[in-house]
């Protein structure tokens, strides 16, 4: 459904995307992960033909982009990072007006509204004004709006950023429904549990290149030790120097927490037993650990 090959895009002196390649087969959910400024949004914009790449090729829904981007977009739904619902219209009007941009007649578009509002859990909000909606409702309406043309492909740029857990779970639930219907989803996210939950494949992007790509579970197995022990508390540094560093296969001290990655947690846990001041969290490695290993712990702004 989407093939990106050697994509390059520069803004002034900075090359934001530096040769990204990936492929999303039909019916899959593909997650593009990366810290702020990694080039995720630019990559999505290139895929949609909203900006012209400096190099590489893109094929979306079988059409070359940007040459036939407009036709490709007729088969795509987009949920942008920042809500751009039309505040001049009510909830239902937003859907109808957007449907007209796809060439739907007033009647066709209106006929789809009820089902879409139901899908978004907004049936009782049809005549509400946009400003009266909560953040979660706006996101769901944006998702419903993206579905107005019944698209086989969806692009979502950070679909749950800024939502509370309840709202987030509702969005995930809807996205799973769409995947069950056989639609293809391409999303960017900062939330590793979101990616782990939804995505068949994830690509981790940093500094404009894709540095790892695989299924989320495979990526964890491939890139990192299966077990993590997080240690914090009084006397951490002494313990870390004496035991942590030595007993873990890979260990790092970040702020006031030590992260110890290993296959066998036993020796580490034993070394902690004699020290009541230290507290430990023993858990399985997750995608976030992979992400931090590959992109580092430095802040990105």
């Amino acid at each position, binding site marked *: 459904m989407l093939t990106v090959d050697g994509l390059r895009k520069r*803004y002034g002196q900075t090359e934001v995307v530096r040769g990204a390649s990936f492929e999303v087969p039909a019916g899959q959910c593909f997650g593009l992960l990366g810290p702020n400024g990694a080039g995720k949004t630019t990559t999505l914009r290139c895929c949609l033909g*909203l*900006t012209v790449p400096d190099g590489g090729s893109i094929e979306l829904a079988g059409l070359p982009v940007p040459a036939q981007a407009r*036709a490709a977009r007729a088969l795509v739904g987009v949920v942008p990072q920042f809500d*751009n619902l039309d505040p*001049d219209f009510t909830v239902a009007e937003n859907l109808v007006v957007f449907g007209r941009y796809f060439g739907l007649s007033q009647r066709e578009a209106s006929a789809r509204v009820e089902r879409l509002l139901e899908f978004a859990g907004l049936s009782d909000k049809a005549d509400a004004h946009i400003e009266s909606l909560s953040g979660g409702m706006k996101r769901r309406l944006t998702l419903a709006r993206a579905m107005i043309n019944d698209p086989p492909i969806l692009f979502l740029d950070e679909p749950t950023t800024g939502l509370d857990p309840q709202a987030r779970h509702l969005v995930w639930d809807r996205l799973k429904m769409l995947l069950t219907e056989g639609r293809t989803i391409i999303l960017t996210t900062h939330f590793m549990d979101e990616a782990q939950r939804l995505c068949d494949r994830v690509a981790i992007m940093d500094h404009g290149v894709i540095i790892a790509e695989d299924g989320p579970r495979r990526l964890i197995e491939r890139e990192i030790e299966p077990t993590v022990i997080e240690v914090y508390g009084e006397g951490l540094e002494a313990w870390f120097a004496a035991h942590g560093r030595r007993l873990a296969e890979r260990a790092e001290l970040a702020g006031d927490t030590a992260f110890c990655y290993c296959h066998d947690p036993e020796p580490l846990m034993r070394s902690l037993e004699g020290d009541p001041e230290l507290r430990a969290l023993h858990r399985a490695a997750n995608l976030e650990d992979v992400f931090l290993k590959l992109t580092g712990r430095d802040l990105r702004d």
Partner: protein
Amino acid sequence: MTEATLATNGAPAVAGATRWRFLHVVHRNYLVWRKLLGSALVGHLADPLIWLVGLGFGLGALLPSLGGLSYLEFLGSGMLCYGVMNSTSFEALYSAFTRLKMQRTWESILHAPMTVTDVVVGEWVFAALKGLFSGAAILLVMAVLGLVESLAALWILPVLLLLGLAFAGIALIVTALAKTYDLFTYYFSLFIMPMTLVSGVFFPSQQLPQIVQAFAQLLPLTHATALSRGLVVGAPLDHIALHVGVLVVYAAIGVVIAARLIRKRLTR
């Protein structure tokens, strides 16, 4: 790939509707305008009417006839153009900028199978139609006041549309360059206002210095005012092709430059 690609990437499947897609944008703005019709009407009419009645009756009583026209006739035919210019400019500056930056409406439209050209042409046409509506309302008031010579005055309507397209194009260029609303204040006080004064809206430009008169000949409002005076209140009408030509040139160049700048801004 050039920037132009984005504008013309029509595909066979939907090519039939290509030329008319901009109407979706016109329609969107029309739906919003209809909601605010009450206050919009007041806005369209109040400003030119206050000028017309205030200046026309007040100042007009003191003035002799101007080339065979009463001052009210003179001012009314100028006000017609002034009203169109103002209404169109406000739409293509403040309202368009709100849709560009604050509401991200244009961005959302581009997520659908629409192009930057569709958006710009839609905004351009809508702003001109809104101006035309203001003009038509003023024309009606003039007819009620007995200032309109004959039904032939309706020929002014296509001229007013053209005038709207000329000012919508220029205004959209300014909108494309604007970072905040502040720029529009400068546009009105440094461009629109002085132009109004030298274009023969309030008083004939003949008594202005030669150089100013020559400069005024380059301005679209001068030519619209001349046409309005001839068509609506029966002043002698000559150089029609020149007047129309200047408006056409402004309209065409304006929208082309605006589309280029807005494309650059939205698709960077």
